[in-house]
């Protein structure tokens, strides 16, 4: 993790402020002047002590092109979520419970904690997999229907589609 | 309308069942999880009785704070109601 310059810290603070302000606007879901002003003040005060939680890298890495990848990621994720649910539905309804569970492991190339968490959450919500632990860069995944125990193959089956977009975003 | 009544009666029965469960259960941790269920059902019932303020209070208090206070007590004392049984199973229950 790189250390932040003074400018980086200020940028981080503004990032946290804008994010909290957006959440406030969604909470109130109105654009009345009083609400907006109060929201700006409140999110400013809350962002002062909590901005160090939000991001750990310099904000100059942020490029607008990455927003497209975020949207692409959302679509991939939604599709995987729907597939996951149909998969669960099939397994739950069928009377013989076609499962072959096990815990597999693979390594990831992602570095930041946030990206690892996003990948783990996505894995949890996609077909038949549940992340049990992350130790350094190794994921341990509970797989409801183990097809292979080889780490490379597992990674290709489980996480490839998310990881290659996440590598572009972060 | 009879449909809604059936659902409400189901919720009421669920609440009675959760109360009986959390009183009758010998394992205190399960009893505490039972109180969480009581608070969940109670919150839905308060909303059905048109009291959103009270439902919000019940949700906020019952979902985490009551649980953590009870769990701290269990951690500091004993987990099982019959203490003889508790001593027998203590070694593999407190450490991982």
């Amino acid at each position, binding site marked *: 993790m790189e250390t932040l310059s003074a400018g980086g810290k200020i940028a981080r603070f503004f990032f946290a402020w804008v994010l909290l302000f957006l959440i406030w606007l969604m909470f109130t879901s109105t654009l009345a002047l009083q609400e907006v002003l109060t929201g700006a003040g409140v999110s400013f005060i809350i962002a002062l002590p909590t901005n160090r939680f939000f991001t750990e890298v310099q904000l100059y890495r942020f490029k607008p092109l990455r927003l497209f990848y975020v949207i692409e990621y959302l679509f991939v994720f939604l599709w995987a979520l729907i597939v996951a649910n149909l998969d669960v539905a099939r397994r739950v309804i069928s009377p013989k419970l076609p499962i072959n*569970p096990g815990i597999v492991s693979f390594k990831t190339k992602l570095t930041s904690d946030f990206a690892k968490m996003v990948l783990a959450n996505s894995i949890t919500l996609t077909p038949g997999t549940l992340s049990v632990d992350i130790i350094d860069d190794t994921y341990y995944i509970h797989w409801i229907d183990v097809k292979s125990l080889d780490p490379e193959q597992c990674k290709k089956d489980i996480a490839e589609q998310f990881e290659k977009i996440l590598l572009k975003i972060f | 309308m009879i449909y809604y009544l059936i659902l409400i009666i189901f919720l009421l029965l669920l609440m009675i069942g959760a109360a009986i469960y959390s009183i009758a259960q010998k394992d205190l941790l399960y009893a505490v999880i039972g109180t969480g269920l009581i608070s969940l059902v109670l919150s839905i019932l308060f909303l059905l009785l048109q009291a959103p303020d009270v439902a919000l209070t019940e949700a906020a208090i019952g979902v985490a704070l009551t649980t953590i206070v009870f769990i701290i007590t269990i951690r500091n004392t004993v987990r099982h109601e019959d203490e003889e049984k508790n001593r027998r199973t203590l070694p593999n229950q407190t450490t991982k």
Partner: protein
Amino acid sequence: MNDILDIFGMILLLIGGIFLFLGGLGIFRMPDTYNRLQAGTKATTLGGMSVILSVGILEPGWFIKTLVLVIFIALANPISSHALAHANYKRGNKPYLKGGPEYDQYRKVFEPEVKETKDNTTEKVKEEETA
């Protein structure tokens, strides 16, 4: 246009209900805790999300607030289920394995003696374990 949105909302509502039901049925039928978590998390997450979103579609003024709820569910639900799975393994509840013990690769983290048979991952017992 409005009718189409309404019909879309109704369909979403119905789908959400079905998935919530499947979540309940799943945690009832599955054989062990991990599989129950699988069914419970995925089905209830999508079910809850689609019910809430359908309400947002049926009443367009509510859409933004329902969107907040959906975002929170999508962030928070996997975390809690991950924490439960992790805690369950640490307590020593081994998963139900159909294929045999080699299907459980996570065990190597806790029992380093298995290391010789199959060595391709880092063996690092967490330092907190000893604390």
